[in-house]
């Protein structure tokens, strides 16, 4: 049976480095994934993995079993990744370089590509580039909240605990990330699903309660 994290932490605190290795084996891949999504660079992500486990080892005695080791190491990794990106100025640079498409969110439809099918876009990595650009344009807090929720499947409560935010602020960060993604990706994605892109403003900048009601009311009256 696998040793629990708490037991491994207790043994590692007592000086057993093999026990710490159990934790490294268990979490290094997850920490790498998180770090990559935050730094967008393989080497930086590997450095974040190293730095995170080093910090964790040095502070292992401060770890209290009230939270899980996974949440704790993620908190350390988030801080390490933010420290690194701040130091390298990568995101600041990326934010400045974030292209604001002319003509708004629908400009990709207007690209004079010979065959701009969604598959081609996907294959060419354009969609990936677009998603990365959007993520890079978000503030570190918003981006981190979204990465933890969307890619790592962490709950809003856990994310709040990692980022030191209240539930409402965490939710708000996630909404902002999703709104930005919708604004930038919806035209591509709707085309991919074979449906026409929605008329501009029809969905509101995603999130307008009033507008969503209007749409439903319209449809209801037409029934």
């Amino acid at each position, binding site marked *: 049976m696998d040793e629990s994290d708490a037991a491994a932490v207790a043994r590692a605190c007592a000086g057993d480095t093999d026990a710490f290795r159990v934790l490294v084996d268990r979490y290094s891949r997850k920490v790498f994934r998180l770090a990559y999504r935050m730094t967008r660079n393989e080497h930086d992500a590997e450095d974040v993995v190293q730095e995170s*486990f080093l910090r964790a080892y040095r502070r292992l005695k401060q770890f209290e079993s009230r939270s899980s080791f996974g949440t704790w190491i993620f908190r350390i990794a988030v801080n390490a990744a933010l420290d690194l990106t701040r130091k390298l100025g990568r995101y600041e640079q990326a934010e400045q370089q974030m292209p604001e498409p002319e003509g708004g969110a629908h400009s990709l439809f207007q690209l004079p590509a010979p065959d701009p099918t969604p598959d081609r876009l996907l294959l060419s990595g354009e969609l990936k580039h677009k998603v990365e650009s959007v993520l890079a344009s978000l503030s570190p807090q918003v981006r981190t909240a979204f990465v933890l929720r969307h890619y790592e499947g962490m709950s809003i409560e856990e994310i709040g*605990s990692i980022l030191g935010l209240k539930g409402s602020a965490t939710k708000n960060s996630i909404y902002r990330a999703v709104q930005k993604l919708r604004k930038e990706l919806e035209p591509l994605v709707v085309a991919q699903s074979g449906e026409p892109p929605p008329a501009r403003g029809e969905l509101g900048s995603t999130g307008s309660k009033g507008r969503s009601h209007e749409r439903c009311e319209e449809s209801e009256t037409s029934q």
Partner: protein
Amino acid sequence: MKDVRKVKHPSEEELILYHYAEAGGPPRAVVTEHMEVCEPCRTRYRELQAVLAAAEVVEAPARSEDFEDEVWRRLVPRLEAAPQESLWQRFFAGPGAPRLWAPVGAVVAVGVLVVGAFLAGRFWPGQPQPQGEAQVQPVSAQSRERILLVAVGDHLERSQMVLVELVNAKPQRTVDISAERQRAEDLVPTNRLYRLTAERSGETGVANLLDELERTLIEIAHSPSRLSSPEFEDLRRRVEAQGILFKVRVVDSQVHERERKAIEDLSRKSS
């Protein structure tokens, strides 16, 4: 068919919560039922799903099967070089000692070292060393800086944890903050020690932050152990209004960066 007009349409935020199966919106069954009968909401949700599914294209590059081994191979020498537990820490964290004493012991031990090193550097920095005579090696300025950085960094981490837990405590009719209160009380004397040391060392930024932090810690330490909901909200609001958590994070990050550089400089010199 149900009358859609009688059902509240989920907002965008509520659809996002629904997508991630998070609480905070209307009950999940209500939203599901609504979308079964409301085509526009169903379309909105499909579009949201499509966008979020598209975001999955950003995948972390695959790692080799021996990734964990590689991480460990690189990590081991750094772990060996990591600051070892001090004798003071061992003493306070020894069998029978309350768990609380371990960090307090560490802080006191490092504090004594810092103040000692600081005073040693301040009052006896340039005394001539007789040639050929065995001397106790003085603490170098770099070592002093490193000790101070490690100590302040750890202190800021601990303070940060107290503030985070307080800010994130679940509001109830009465909120028990006795644990946070006790930890804040323990942190006050060490905070004062570091503040004075930082002031004397000309570390104005760190000293100012520690001054603000000290006031916040004292406020928490002087609060009753159990607070009514409005009292707790009031305390939380005051802590948040000071923006102390953010400031602590920023300075903590700067301190760790300097700590890392100090370690690099030391290891470069020793090699």
